[in-house]
């Protein structure tokens, strides 16, 4: 499964960046069977964008034909775009891109599937408490 992971730098050893729209890079990896193949790193122009960075980021990763995104704070608009394209979103955990990809391989990352409603201030579902 081709996956985009938001990161602070290029390459699979970089730390993940939990911001989706304004991360520095997207590392594209292919997670298949027992293997993680690094494909490439793309600089994210959204980091300098005045507005709509999340949407722009969604467009960038979608054009790479990824099937999943591993990130933290995916805003409602970016969520809508990714969702409508059938791209799955997984909650990143602190660590490197590689560690996150391995966790994804082992099915240990939490899938985010609520872009709206529910869970507010009831001690669950913020999806960003680390």
């Amino acid at each position, binding site marked *: 499964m081709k996956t985009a992971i938001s990161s602070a730098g290029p390459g699979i050893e970089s730390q993940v960046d939990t*911001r989706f729209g*304004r991360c520095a890079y997207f590392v594209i990896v292919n997670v298949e069977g027992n293997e993680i193949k690094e494909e490439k790193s793309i600089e994210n122009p959204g980091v300098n964008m*005045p*507005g709509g960075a999340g949407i722009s980021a969604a467009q960038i990763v979608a054009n790479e034909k990824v099937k999943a995104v591993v990130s933290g*704070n995916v*805003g*409602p608009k970016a969520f809508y775009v990714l969702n409508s394209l059938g791209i799955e979103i997984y909650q990143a955990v602190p660590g490197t891109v590689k560690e996150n990809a391995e966790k994804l391989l082992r099915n240990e990352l939490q899938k985010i599937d609520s872009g709206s409603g529910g*869970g*507010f*201030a*009831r*001690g669950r*579902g*913020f*999806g*960003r*408490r680390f």
Partner: protein
Amino acid sequence: MKVINVLSGKGGTGKTMVSSSLLWTMSRKKRVVGIDCDVDAANLGMVLGVKITRRKEIETSEKAFLIEEKCTGCFKCVDVCNFSAIEKGDKKPVFNRFLCEGCGSCELVCPENAIEIKTVKNAWITEGASRYGFPVVSGQLKMGESGSGKIVTEVGRTGERVAKENKSEIMIIDSAAGISCPVIASVRNTDYVIAVSEPTPSGFNDLKRAIKLVEFFKIPCGLIINKFDINKELTRKIENFAKEKGLSVLGRIPYHKDFVDAAVNLKPVVVYKKKYREIFENIAEKIYSWFE
């Protein structure tokens, strides 16, 4: 680093008072950075006595400009502008720069290529250290300029860089009043929101609207009731509302002339009068425990 956003909906409920006092309180135990996102009227730096060390002019807005000699006066641009920013002049269109959004519709429709969209310098971003040592970043829109939401994003980015340089553990953002673009831009990407309210019908009403916004972004939120003693019944209602929404009440602040005097003397109230320190220390503790 944890990012705390102080907002209120209604203006003048005490956001800057809360932000400055909380910054000072937290700075005694942690490395903090203050961000003033009230780009229409930036006041946080004034209370904290910031000595500006860096000032940057930025361009986040675009506007349409007419190239007079190319224009034939067909006025197609006037019809196409959805922001009423172009009016029919005697021979040529007249552009109102305050209403122009820089969207480029007029540029696209102009048969003579007589319109160009150019970026304009519309704001200042300043960095400096407060008289209490910690760094503060402020944004200030130039007069009559638009695009405050985008400037807030820019202030936030500068703030992040400064935070990194200073290895800050806590960032406190003082938001603008209201719930429109500048506030939305500053609420994004925060870990915790402090809503400051006051027990007046409008204070309560605006709080509800602000909370809806916070719910929309699903950010954990706590409440501070300022001037809680001017109408205890409404304070009770606000607290019931907080309970209903699952928000914790972080603190209640009384109404006293000390707060005005502190403002006139340009000092955080906790520096001006020691007796208010306990309130803010408790608020700080409650927020730390949320982060743990």
